[in-house]
């Protein structure tokens, strides 16, 4: 088992003929991800890495039964692509695009909620169930099948964490990069719940960062609903107030959202917080008595 995606997930690539879309489609196909279709308006009938291209999501879903979509569309048009996916019958949307205007995401997430469609991102590296399916831009070589579930607001920091886990022979059930934007799709709480309910997952790594209070809320949720061991890391302990640290969401304002507050919130509910990345695999080993 795993969460959200597995080898049966039928994936559609929006923006498949673009530079990034085409490149990463190749990577996903190579990994064995079940890519069934691509969308690029006006390019219907073409194919990219042997994946058939359609003009619209609706056409692609009708022809291939795609249930999940990954978006490689320039930021100004990305939210529209999310809406098209949801309207077209897709059930899980993974938006890789970086720099999507926040108010576009406010509108898009409201529509997805109404339609009962799940979203990962935007501005995220995607997700992977090792050995089954990778959707996004994750470097697949560092992942290893196993029993640790990972949720992260960051990209390369996640890769570092995963490679440390894999080095210590701690494979992963599913790893999800939820993205660093202020308004995003599935977040800690929803994913913690999925991992809690997933029989394969034995422990959970949560990688947060400064800004917002999602980590504080996650801590409260863990206290009430999560019985599996969780360990955490918070990036941005030394970030100055009021500055945007790359991720639009990583801005400390209104005196909340600091790393110190987040760390305190986790430790208060018994979730150990690693001070250095290298501590993560050690804490997991300890939690699993390995």
């Amino acid at each position, binding site marked *: 088992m795993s969460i959200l995606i597995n080898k049966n997930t039928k994936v559609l690539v929006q923006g498949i003929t673009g530079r990034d879309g085409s490149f990463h489609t190749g990577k996903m196909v190579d990994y064995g991800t079940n890519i069934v279709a691509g969308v690029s308006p006006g390019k219907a009938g073409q194919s990219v890495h042997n994946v058939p291209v359609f003009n619209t999501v609706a056409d692609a879903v009708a022809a291939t039964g795609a249930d999940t979509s990954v978006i490689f569309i320039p930021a100004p048009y990305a939210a529209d692509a999310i809406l098209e996916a949801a309207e077209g019958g897709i059930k899980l949307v993974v938006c890789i695009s970086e720099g999507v205007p*926040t*108010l576009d995401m406010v509108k898009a997430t409201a529509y997805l909620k109404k339609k009962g469609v799940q979203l990962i991102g935007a501005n995220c590296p995607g997700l992977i169930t090792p050995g089954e399916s990778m959707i996004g831009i994750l470097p697949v070589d560092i992942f290893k099948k196993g029993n640790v579930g990972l949720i992260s607001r960051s990209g390369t920091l996640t890769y570092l964490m995963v490679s440390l886990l894999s080095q210590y022979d701690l494979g992963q059930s599913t790893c999800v990069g939820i993205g660093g934007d*202020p308004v995003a799709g599935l977040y800690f709480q929803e994913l913690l719940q999925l991992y809690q309910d997933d029989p394969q997952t034995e422990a959970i790594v949560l990688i947060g960062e400064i800004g917002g209070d999602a980590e504080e809320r996650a801590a409260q949720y863990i206290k009430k609903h999560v019985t599996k061991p969780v360990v955490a890391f918070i*990036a941005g302990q030394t970030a100055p107030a009021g500055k945007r640290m*790359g991720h639009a969401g*990583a801005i400390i304002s209104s005196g909340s959202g600091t790393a110190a507050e987040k760390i305190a919130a986790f430790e208060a509910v018994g979730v150990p917080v690693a001070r250095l990345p290298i501590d993560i695999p050690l804490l997991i080993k300890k939690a699993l008595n390995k």
Partner: protein
Amino acid sequence: MKIHEYQARQLFREYGIPVPDDILCYTVEEVEAAAKKMNRMTVVKAQVLVGGRGKAGGVKLARTTEDAVSAAKQILGMDIKGCTVEKVLVADAVDIKKEYYVGLTIDRNTKSVLFMASAEGGVEIEEVAKVNPDAIHKIPIDPDLGMTDFMARKIAFKLFSDIAQVKQAADIFKKLYRIFMDTDASIVEINPLVVTNNDALSAIDGKMNFDDNALYRQAEIEKLNEPTEDEKKEIAAKASGLTYIRLDGNIGCMVNGAGLAMATMDVIKHFGGSPANFLDIGGSSNPQKVIDAMNLLMSDKNVKVIMINIFGGITRCDDVAKGLVTALDQLNVKIPIVIRLSGTNAEEGLKIIKAKNLPTVNSLSEAAQKAISLVN
């Protein structure tokens, strides 16, 4: 992106929100002329993009033109949290009966625009949030409805009981929401919104921040940008695909990815060092980007050592290493460099680096400790 109070006031006016008259001045002479022209009690306000100017003495009440001139002399040129005051606003000082706070921002949890309103205005809302959080009404606005008449009225009734004031306030709230949406703002605040002695509402201070991701469709807003020196550097970096924020330390950092860049800073601090900057070079291994990044790091005289931390993902470490070598060939870097490469094709990358006799390390912790040792 942030704008000055005088710019926010102007935007408010354009949307029909009542704001007292004001004149922007760059010199003491201009202030004198402005105060004479206004010919009533004024308030002279430093125009800087940082908070806390009141506490710093950047806002002064002036009963006479002489008062205004004396205030201007004190305020113009003054330093507020590292910003030099280059201009002041001479504004009509209205009589205040009571002060309120209203603001709009993005709420991550409800994924909507959040309207905030409080009868405890005129003080820092962050303080109110800490001391008396219940005094701040927080109302998420349904994106499908926007700010409806009834909702504006409902919020207004939380602050006012007199129906004439409720109507005025509701009208202001609707306009404030329109400004927020029309301009892709991330924060809009009126603090304080006041009731004057003749029972009219007036916005006597305004704050607006904007969503940088949406500036491409907000040409009029982008024109209002008056970046500080540090921000100019950040904007130039952005144009080269780099996210750069200058800090106070001496270890220059070059990292790929925002989260990893923050974690790198944290590890440096953990071992007792002090990062000179946040610098995310993003996902590309384009040598030009690495050259730009190196130039940026070296332009900061505080930087004593450069620490490069790359995690190869889709970007392969050997590509990055090649870019790095090309960059270093072209630049005259006189300070020590610590390089850490890991992830995809790290071995090949390290080979290239070592062939150039550049120092490499194996872990992030080691990199940080080495860099710190090289500073001293």
